[in-house]
């Protein structure tokens, strides 16, 4: 099975910071197969955050082509990108980024709310599958159970440990059954024990559900657990290690 989930050709990204042009990415070509776990490493300023943002459809490349899950997203509008993120990308952040006001369940449901484009094209089908109705709630519950938080469904983020919060974030990332999971330093804010648990959870998602995962990390021991590590430096790929 060598279907490509990510096929990025010659990605470049240029920022203007005042008078100076900063070349954050300088021609990066990446291909990721379905079911692969890939680590992206590099010192700060190497462009790995920029690459992650582009691969996660949070940002557009200045030049180059990016095909995600069979769809060319290099020239989409802001709102189209938002819908791609909603359907095809799951994010896990270093700082969890949960909404503090709401329960774990509501946090996991959040992507479902944006899956039903009620304002532009009201479709009963979309609402039935995506809207947060009884079905959506049940899906969110199942997602929490699958990350081992079945007994914490109605707890708020501040009542959960860091590891548990990251599990909620993973459940949220999985709720729309994305093509790819983007994890940005997923263990960066955790102690080593819960960090290991989170890594085990991610790897088991890959093993059991064939989830394609990209992990951005500083930590060589994390990178060592993946199938392939891409080292970035100064906006180009320095080396790839299998």
């Amino acid at each position, binding site marked *: 099975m060598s279907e490509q989930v990510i096929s990025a050709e010659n990605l470049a990204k240029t920022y203007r910071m005042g008078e100076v042009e900063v070349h954050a990415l300088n021609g990066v070509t990446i291909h990721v197969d379905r079911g692969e776990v890939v680590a992206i490493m590099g010192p700060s300023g190497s462009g790995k955050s920029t690459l992650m*943002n582009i691969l996660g459809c949070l940002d557009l490349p200045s030049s180059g082509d990016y095909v995600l899950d069979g769809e060319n997203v290099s020239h989409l509008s802001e*709102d189209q990108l938002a819908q791609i993120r909603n359907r095809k990308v799951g*994010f896990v952040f270093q700082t969890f*980024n949960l909404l503090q006001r709401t329960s774990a369940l509501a946090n996991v449901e*959040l992507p479902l709310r*944006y899956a039903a484009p009620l304002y532009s094209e009201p479709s009963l089908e979309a609402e039935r599958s995506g*809207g947060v109705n009884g079905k959506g709630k049940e899906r969110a519950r199942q997602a929490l159970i699958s990350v081992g938080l079945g007994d914490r469904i109605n707890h708020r983020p501040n009542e959960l440990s860091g590891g548990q919060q990251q599990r909620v974030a993973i459940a949220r990332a999985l709720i*729309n059954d994305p093509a790819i999971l983007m994890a940005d330093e997923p263990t960066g804010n955790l102690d080593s024990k819960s960090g290991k648990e989170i890594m085990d959870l991610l790897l088991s998602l890959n093993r059991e559900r064939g989830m394609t995962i990209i992990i951005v990390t500083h930590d060589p021991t994390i990178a060592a657990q993946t199938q392939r590590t891409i080292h970035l430096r100064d906006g180009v790929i320095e080396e790839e290690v299998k």
Partner: protein
Amino acid sequence: MSLSQQFIEAMKSLTSNKLRSSLTILGIVIGVAAVISMLAIGRGAQNSITNSINGIGTNLLYISSGNPTQNVRNPKPLTTADVAALQDPAAAPDVAAVAPVIQARTTVVADGKTTSTSVSGVTPDYAQISNESTTEGDFINQSQTTSRAAVAVIGPTTATTLFGGTSGIVGKQIRIGGTPFTVIGVLTSKGGSGFGSQDDRVLIPLTTAQTRLIKRNPSNRVDQILAQATSSETVTAAQDEISAVLRVTHKTKPGLDDFNILAQAAILDAVSSITGIMTVFLGGIAGISLLVGGIGIMNIMLVSVTERTREIGLRKALGARKIDILIQFLTESIMLSLLGGFIGILVAWGISSIIGQIAAASGTPITPSIGLDAILLATLFSSAIGLLFGLYPSNRAASLQPVEALRYE
């Protein structure tokens, strides 16, 4: 996201910072309450004034001597001869009744109590024209007028001042300017308020006043003639007929009249427009506080957008489009202002009923009325304010770049 979900989310976000939300709402509450209560009080005052003018009588025309717009040499006074001419149905067919009045402020004494009040000499027709009736006794009749009887009809306020009540007074003696009079009736209250009250006065026969109390030169001179048109449609025709008759008796040319006719409808219009202007003026000043409340909403929404930059970034990362974020923040600001609007209506209701009671207690009955239009206006206005002042912060939130927003500390 469905509307009900939006609503619940906005509610959660507003209740998560209760103090801030309620202070923001307070701004709108004050604004809306000020606008509505000002409008209500203005309308109450207008009703009260028009009612007391209507109480004087309907289809009335006031004829007085002199010309307010032009300088006329040697204006002739109005006399009982003019009254006789106006009573001729051939000359003035649209005039139903005519009543001459002479008036003076005089000291009235009874039971050792003294009051200074307006004493008017009137004819029996006055009762019909001026819409008078009595709660006790009778009005002045024709034979009392002919015989120049020393009888008086007194207003309810005067009765209360002199006798401490409005009943059991008929037959009692009062002294008007030193002359003894017998009370033959007590007038029904007209509810007129403040200065020029229609309830504090004494009416005596015109002939009695002319010969004994209020001497004029020439002796048949009257201060004012009241005329009543046959209906509200004939007021203008009656006015023209009266002018024609008086031009003959006074021998004046058109445009050089030495008399002046004022229709009650014109007075009513003038008063209405004055109170209307006052109401708009007060409402406008109150509207400024509503504007300030709106700026308060904008301020707090801007703070909220800045505080929640990361949340906005997260929502965008999870698939929220510009419009999703826009609607989320707009819902919050509209909810703030609508809630403020509803509470404001209640507060306005409280304020205006308190003011109504204060006014009633101080003898100037005003019944502030909060109309449906005022409530509708306030609701519409406050949601418009929420929309208007929420638009800029919400748009700012919606335009945030997800990458930047997520990185925000």
